[in-house]
């Protein structure tokens, strides 16, 4: 990967902030809510924060799509995001029906996000395979 442009540098910074927020709020939620030390509205707030931190990753990718001035890199990123979306939604759709028919165990909903992030890597691979370059943005 070559040197990052300003939009990509801002993306990296935003992802770093979201990652830090996720780790801190998850640790706090596990310690305080998970062990029953906090209940009521504060427990709700603490339990919401890790998920909202993950939403920060999606926001960062959305901003990158808006701020990336290079149209080719933007197209690569759009393709990457579409592959990630198809990847995550296909797997969770299939799993949902298997779960519905009690053929597999229940999986927590946040796995959709994990699969989507993995899908960004798949998208970068597809870009490299079809266009010769993974793109300069995320994953």
């Amino acid at each position, binding site marked *: 990967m*070559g040197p990052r*442009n300003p939009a990509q540098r801002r993306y990296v910074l935003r992802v770093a902030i979201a990652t830090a927020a996720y780790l801190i709020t998850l640790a706090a939620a596990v310690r305080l809510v998970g062990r029953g030390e906090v209940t009521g509205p504060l427990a709700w707030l603490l339990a919401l924060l890790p998920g909202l931190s993950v939403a920060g990753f999606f926001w960062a990718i959305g901003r990158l799509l808006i701020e990336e*001035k*290079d*149209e*080719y*890199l933007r*197209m690569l990123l759009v393709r990457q995001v579409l592959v990630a979306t198809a990847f995550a939604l296909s797997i969770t759709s299939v799993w949902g029906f298997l779960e519905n028919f009690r053929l597999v165990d229940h999986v927590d909903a946040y796995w959709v996000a994990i699969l989507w992030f993995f899908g960004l890597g798949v998208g970068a691979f597809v870009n490299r395979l079809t*266009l*010769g*370059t993974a793109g*300069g943005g995320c994953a």
Partner: protein
Amino acid sequence: MNNRLRVLRAERGWSQGDLAERLQVSRQSVNAIETGRYDPSLPLAFRIAKLFALPVEAIFLSEV
């Protein structure tokens, strides 16, 4: 769509990086356009034409 970008660039002795810098795009963009893997938008096509002081149709060649 075919184009003469590589030839025009070579005539001026520019690397892909030089051309990318002049167009304010990534080197990957220049490479993708030169190799026909990506057709630029109209605004970028006109910027390329302006840089080489040529009409757009002298750089990008229609296949139809």
